[in-house]
């Protein structure tokens, strides 16, 4: 049986760890609230953007546009959004698993990393890191999404890559986040049954409008992904820290019990020794 001092030492160490995880939980709760409001404000834009694009494409079925066709290059770019900091449970590994267990062979992948953790994991596994934008995840603004979007679109038009994907954690609510891998380009939108048939006009020409709008669509998806990822990251960290704190409490309760038993048995032993000693003198 461990000595009283050993148990006490263990207790102190778990106690201080518990304090840290508790503080981290509080911090990420506050951050989550902030990120959540931001994500809610971003949603209308992404939704409206998606609705517009799908409506445009379903109305005009026979458009021939480079952004709608797969490039001839077999390289595939993936924008991977993870976090810069750890201690967020399975948040980062869930994202990288999308790629490592995914259907796309490693040789064809080019990673545009946003978030140091994901970048490190993928680099260690031998994935090609084309670019690293890890700084933006701390406080993503629309400008960042535009820059990243421009970079991948340039590579797409130059035919260095044939397809563009986005891997991020979608934020459903505080407790449920889902890692997602979506295809940005070429755009694939399921043909819906057309409810209304008002022909849409384009000014200037259809092709030029698509030229202007599709990059914005890609950027808005990237931006939405960034914002949701930040919310999910803090949600994941909050959960991880919450369970860490309750684990620490459980261990402390267990150790307290052990400590008290050890204390009691040492007192009992001392008493027995004293009584035995007293009897020996008599």
């Amino acid at each position: 049986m461990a000595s009283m001092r050993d148990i006490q030492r263990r207790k102190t160490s778990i106690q201080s760890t518990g304090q840290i995880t508790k503080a981290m939980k509080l911090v990420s709760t506050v951050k989550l609230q902030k990120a959540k409001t931001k994500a809610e404000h971003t949603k209308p834009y992404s939704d409206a953007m998606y609705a517009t694009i799908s409506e445009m494409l379903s109305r005009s079925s026979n458009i021939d546009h480079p952004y709608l066709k797969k490039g001839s290059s077999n390289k595939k770019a993936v924008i991977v959004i993870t976090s810069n900091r750890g201690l967020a449970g399975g948040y980062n590994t869930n994202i990288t698993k999308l790629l490592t267990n995914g259907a796309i062979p490693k040789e064809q992948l080019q990673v545009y990393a946003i978030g140091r953790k994901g970048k490190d994991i993928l680099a260690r596994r031998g994935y090609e890191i084309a670019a690293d934008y890890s700084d933006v995840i701390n406080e993503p603004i629309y400008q960042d999404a535009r820059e990243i979007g421009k970079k991948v679109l340039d590579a797409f038009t130059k035919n260095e890559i044939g397809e563009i994907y986005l891997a991020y954690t979608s934020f459903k609510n505080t407790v449920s986040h889902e890692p997602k891998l979506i295809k940005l380009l070429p755009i694939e939108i399921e043909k819906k049954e057309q409810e209304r048939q008002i022909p849409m006009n384009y000014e200037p020409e259809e092709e030029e409008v698509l030229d202007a709008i599709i990059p914005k669509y890609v950027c808005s998806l990237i931006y939405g992904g960034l914002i949701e990822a930040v919310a999910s990251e803090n949600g994941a960290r909050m959960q991880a820290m919450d369970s860490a704190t309750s684990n620490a409490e459980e261990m402390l309760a267990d150790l307290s019990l052990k400590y008290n038993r050890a204390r009691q048995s040492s007192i009992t032993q001392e008493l027995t020794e004293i009584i035995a000693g007293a009897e020996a003198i008599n």
Partner: protein
Amino acid sequence: MAELFQLQIISPNRIFYDGQVSMVEMNTGEGQIGVYARHLPVTTTLEPGIVKIHEEGSVREAAVHAGFAVILQDKVTLMAEVAEWPEEIDINRAEEARIRAERRLSTNEPNLDVARAELALRRSLTRIELSKHR
């Protein structure tokens, strides 16, 4: 009184404007246009410029830079990458941006991104003009 229709201006960070209006004026890639209710459905690109929102009895103005507009018969949606009310504009910053852009355009650097500098200039000019209307 003219017929009202719904106008939404959505920027990445917020729903900038959502309300019933009688007319909206905007600066498209093809020039200035004004839209009333029951307009022909049109999708068009937006250039940096001032959007005039004619509400019932009043006119509000906002700066909108880059984006596109989807005009339907009963609804107009402006998807703006940046949208600002006059009171949100920092006039000093806009002036600085204008001077910077003008300087960049007047140099004869060979690898100057003219389109980008011009766009920056137009953005700053829009902001300056709008803040004068305050």
